[in-house]
């Protein structure tokens, strides 16, 4: 299955769908998601809770509970160091384990709980090196010390022997990053890495990630719900809603000229520091129940531009509106042209 | 049974022994050849050197190893083998000299005719286990210690009459009695003597270091004790008597009677002592291979004690009627598998003072009803009889957890219910039952197995004298609060003479009196089912001792 592909994206996800078993039914969580990531590029996955952005990344990492509890289809092609391209979703478990943490790594939202409380920082960082590189403990620890320095933790030799609870949240996230970078992965997936941190620390971590990416040239998938962070870090953006991609493109076009009403609403609802006054902007309603999705566009019930037909009739396709800028909306061109027809939908208690 | 020899003829095999055995012959039917207790009667070729090990299983744990101290029945199993007495009781009630050279009698000048002056000759060849010779000084020390007010003595009564103890020579000791006291030889037959040279050095006689490593004159010497499990004794080769023939004697504690029996079954135990095999297992035990199982009579009689001070039991007719309503035969035949012997006396029938001519009880509920009717106890609306406002209603207590007795109790409840007497069962843990509840007569009625004798002596002053009612300030164990001037006189008569014939006459009358007055409703005389592994020879039961390992010095493996 490995075939040589010297150029092209480091990670290419195609047609990824994920469903969770709930009793006998399968509840769909992600539909037909696809994206590619070039070396050195940062792709931001944006969406609110329940949009499927984390599930997408966990599915690619094969970190979801195994079938029958989940059902994953599609492919995730990773270009490996040896030049071969492997489909992460089709590899046997053992082969996948060899790639995971080596060629593709991941960091998580909660630095408080994502580190094993009973092992020392150094050992936790060294563990992956020992497993993937076959290093002895002493050598692995030496490397770990270097990694700790590299992620900006002072006094690395001493920190090596620290336990996670002895570190602050920001430091722990740095440790997570050091752990992920240990084997020089081609792709790093960062799942809301700054959400649990204070703004000042968030800024530090973003800077760190940007710097490291420049050094290593790895591809970065950055999952967040914070559009401010997206603007700071991303090259390209993929917006998800109710398990589907609704808009995808370069960060500047998507954020300055969003085509999908949901993206527009999302950007508008970010509170700004400019003291412009007036009410804050919100999107009415709530996300739909994945068990009982609306028949047409999933966003239609909350969309001020939606029309009974075509929006409620069928799920719109992901169209390439402009070069490299995809949008899942039937009315994107009308809306872009200033057509604001459609009544605001009253808020409902489900 | 009727023996009127006095103590002077106690020594030596004689007709009495044979008669004695004849009486118990029924019980011994399954026992096979029984080896006599006298040295001469032993097997023809005793082994020269002690060998082998016998395990005695007991359901209680011996823990007190200072024989003069307050102790309980089970401790004596160890004393019998570790220590010596001046003389021992034979199964027929006669005495055999142990540390004494002979039994003192009027004839041999050991006791003065008035019974006040005693002169005991001791064996010259006895050595303590540590090699120190046993002398009259040891006896003197022991007699003094027993009545030392600071000492928690196992028995003072009797010893407190001893005066002017004189060591005549290392092998002879003399004393004077305050007044004639017939049971005293019997008391001395289970007074084991400790070594003066060790005991006198104890910092505190009540907390003797001696008990950790006791030294005696018995056939076995102390080896080790695993608390809660067993005591190991080893043959004492310097023993002055015959034997021992076993190298090791293990006294094992197995607290549960069923497990004890199981261990006997599986061969972990060679001899079951104390409470023996429970009657429930008798039938099964008889069929065991290579085991000899035999019921042997005990001096204990099972009684229903009635607290005669209570209004309900004041009326003799009530006591009589209750007795008539007891289905004794069912209790004995069914619940106790026919092992015990029905009795009408408080004394075991093996005692020389036993009265065999007491009226026989028979199960007669109708007679009991008639008797109660006649006495004015009329059935009330709920079926319980009443007289003068007193309801024929009472509780019955005994040790909680004694299964067979509880079964009998439940049968009695039904028997008595039939004649209009309501009995409620209220059993108590032993420490409650036999504490003040029993001793100070706080019970209403009780089921109790009692040995009324003083060792082998039939004196029962403590149980029937009106001076012995603890609830009224007396010092004895007359817990039924039985008051009878006639009984008091007979008890006095029996205890104050050494003449056995005179004594016996008094005790026969007393038994008749007690049978008539019924402070205790006598049920049966206990028989304990002893089990011995086949091949263990020399085992002999002895009703006059608390424990049937009294002659383990004679035991040997075939």
């Amino acid at each position: 299955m490995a075939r040589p592909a010297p150029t092209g994206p480091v990670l290419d996800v195609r047609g990824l769908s994920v469903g969770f078993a709930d009793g006998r039914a399968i509840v769909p969580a992600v539909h037909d998601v696809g994206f590619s990531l070039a070396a050195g590029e940062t792709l931001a996955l944006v969406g609110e809770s329940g949009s499927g952005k984390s599930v997408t990344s966990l599915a690619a990492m094969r970190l979801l509970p195994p079938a029958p509890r989940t059902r994953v289809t599609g492919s995730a092609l990773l270009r490996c160091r040896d030049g071969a391209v492997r489909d992460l979703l089709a590899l046997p478990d053992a082969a996948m384990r060899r790639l995971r943490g080596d060629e593709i790594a991941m960091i998580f939202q909660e630095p408080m709980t994502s580190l094993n409380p009973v092992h020392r920082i150094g050992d936790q960082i060294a563990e992956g090196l020992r497993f993937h590189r076959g290093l002895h403990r002493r050598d692995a620890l030496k490397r770990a010390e270097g990694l700790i320095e590299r992620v900006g933790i002072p006094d690395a030799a001493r920190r090596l022997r620290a336990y996670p609870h002895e570190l602050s949240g920001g430091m722990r996230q740095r440790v997570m990053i050091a752990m992920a970078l240990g084997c020089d992965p081609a792709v790093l997936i960062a799942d809301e890495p700054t959400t649990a941190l204070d703004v000042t620390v968030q800024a530090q971590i973003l800077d760190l990630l940007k710097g490291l990416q420049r050094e290593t040239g790895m591809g970065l998938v950055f999952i967040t719900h914070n559009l401010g962070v997206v603007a700071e870090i991303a090259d390209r953006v993929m917006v998800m809603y109710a398990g589907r991609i609704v808009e995808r493109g370069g960060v500047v076009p998507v954020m300055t000229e969003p085509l999908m009403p949901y993206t527009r609403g999302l950007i508008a609802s970010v509170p700004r520091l400019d003291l412009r006054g007036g009410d804050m902007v919100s999107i009415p309603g709530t996300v739909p129940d994945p068990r009982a999705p609306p028949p047409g566009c999933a966003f239609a019930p909350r969309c001020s531009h939606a029309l009974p037909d075509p929006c409620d009739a069928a799920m719109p396709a992901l169209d390439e509106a402009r070069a490299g800028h995809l949008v899942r909306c039937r009315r994107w061109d009308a809306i872009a042209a200033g057509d604001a027809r459609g009544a605001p939908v009253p808020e409902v208690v489900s | 049974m009727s023996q009127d020899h006095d103590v002077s003829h106690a020594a030596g095999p004689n007709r009495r022994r044979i008669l004695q055995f004849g009486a118990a012959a029924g019980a011994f039917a399954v026992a096979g050849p029984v080896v006599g207790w006298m040295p001469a009667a032993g097997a023809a070729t005793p082994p020269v050197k002690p060998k082998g090990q016998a395990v005695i299983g007991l359901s209680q744990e011996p823990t007190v190893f200072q024989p003069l101290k307050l102790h309980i029945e089970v401790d004596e199993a160890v004393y019998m083998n570790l220590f010596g007495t001046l003389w021992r009781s034979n199964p027929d009630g006669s005495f055999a000299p142990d540390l004494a050279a002979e039994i003192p009698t009027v004839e041999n000048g050991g006791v003065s005719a008035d019974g006040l002056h005693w002169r005991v000759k001791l064996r010259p060849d006895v050595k303590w286990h540590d090699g120190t010779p046993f002398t009259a000084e040891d006896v003197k020390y022991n007699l003094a210690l027993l009545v030392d007010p600071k000492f928690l003595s196992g028995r003072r009564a009797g010893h407190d009459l001893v005066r002017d103890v004189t060591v005549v020579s290392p092998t002879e000791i003399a004393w004077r009695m305050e007044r004639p006291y017939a049971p005293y030889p019997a008391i001395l037959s289970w007074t084991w003597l400790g070594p003066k040279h060790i005991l006198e050095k104890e910092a505190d006689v009540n907390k003797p270091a001696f008990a950790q490593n006791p030294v005696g004159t018995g056939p076995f010497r102390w080896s080790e004790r695993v608390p809660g499990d067993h005591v190991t004794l080893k043959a004492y080769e310097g023993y002055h008597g015959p034997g021992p023939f076993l190298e090791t004697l293990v006294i094992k504690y197995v607290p549960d009677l069923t497990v004890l029996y199981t261990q006997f079954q599986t061969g972990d135990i060679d001899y079951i002592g104390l409470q023996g095999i429970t009657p429930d297992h008798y039938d099964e035990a008889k069929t065991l291979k290579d085991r000899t199982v035999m019921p042997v009579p005990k001096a204990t009689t099972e009684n229903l004690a009635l607290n005669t001070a209570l209004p309900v039991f004041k009326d003799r007719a009530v006591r009589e009627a209750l007795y008539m309503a007891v289905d004794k035969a069912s209790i004995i035949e069914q619940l106790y598998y026919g092992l015990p012997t029905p009795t009408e006396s408080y004394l075991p029938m093996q005692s020389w003072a036993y009265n065999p001519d007491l009226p026989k009880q028979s199960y007669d509920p109708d007679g009991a009803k008639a008797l109660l009717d006649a006495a004015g106890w009329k059935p009330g609306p709920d079926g319980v009889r009443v007289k003068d406002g007193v309801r024929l209603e009472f509780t019955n207590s005994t040790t909680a957890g004694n299964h067979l007795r509880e079964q009998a109790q439940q049968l009695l409840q039904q028997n008595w219910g039939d004649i209009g007497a309501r009995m409620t069962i209220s059993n108590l843990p032993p420490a409650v039952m036999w504490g003040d509840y029993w001793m100070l007569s706080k019970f209403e009625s009780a089921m109790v197995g009692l040995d009324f004798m003083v060792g082998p002596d039939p004196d029962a002053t403590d149980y029937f004298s009106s001076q012995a009612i603890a609830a009224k300030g007396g010092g004895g164990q007359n817990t039924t609060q039985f008051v009878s001037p006639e009984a008091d006189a007979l008890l006095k008569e029996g205890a104050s003479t050494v003449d056995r014939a005179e004594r016996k006459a008094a005790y026969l009358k007393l038994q008749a009196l007690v049978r008539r007055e019924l402070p205790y409703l006598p049920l049966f005389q206990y028989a304990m089912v002893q089990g011995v592994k086949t091949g263990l020879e020399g085992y002999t039961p002895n009703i006059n001792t608390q424990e049937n390992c009294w002659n383990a010095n004679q035991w040997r493996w075939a």
Partner: protein
Amino acid sequence: MTDTPLAPARRFAAFLPGPRRAAMRRPRSRAVSRFLRHRLAVAGFAVILLMVLACALGPLLIPYDQLHIDLRARFAGPFAGPHVFGTDQLGRDLLVRLLMAGRISLTIGFAAMALSTLAGTTVGLVAGYRGGIVGAALMRLVDAVLCFPSVFLLLALAAFISPNVVTITLIIAATGWMEVARVVEGQIRALKTRDFALAAELMGASARYVMVNELLRNAVGPIIVAATLTVARAILAEAYVSFLGYGIQAPVASWGNMLNNAQQYLGSAPWLAIFPGLMITLAVGGFNFVGDGLRDALDARVEL
């Protein structure tokens, strides 16, 4: 106690947008349906129900008196002859005695549970809510009683008290309330930190209102579970104390004293030991299974 909206164990469920709103009904009926899914728990419940009914009604239907002694009919074997489960050493019908004993054993179990749950809940509630010196003192008392292995304490008490249903119930309750107190204390201490308790306090609620209406209401699940397990424990405790002869006294039957009396007939009449043993195992097992099912059904963290 899980306070965060995304408890670790629930993380995957949290991926599902909009929690299972459609399927959600009231907590009570959800708990019932969760309990019913627990097959062993339902079986346990059925066993208990059956046992209670049998013990309540059975003796009325069986033509034997539990106390009637018939020495001619001693040791009749089971499943042969008129006595279905055979007879005991006094020729009494074993089945009717088993059921009458069940009345005693179950009564003691339930009564001891009620008492110890009441005591334990009160102590735990006050200790957990008050905290500080009062709470520490109360919990030290709990610790002190827990220092005695409960069997030791039970026996020490039982050996000294004249045994009957009431006293045995009391001593079993006296040795069984500490666990409940601990459970409740832990629950309340955790619940106390939740904002709804503070919200009630900020509305001016009295300590009693907060304890009973806000906190206790949320600790009901664990208390019910603990209470169920306490019944099981109490039945075992009664059986054990009676087995050692310190418990319910003849002629009243309890499973424990039936076993006690049967011990010596293990070789000759094993059914005398087997039936009461089975009854105890069934009853205790029933309550244990129900407790386990309830623990799943009432698990607070699934609720939140």
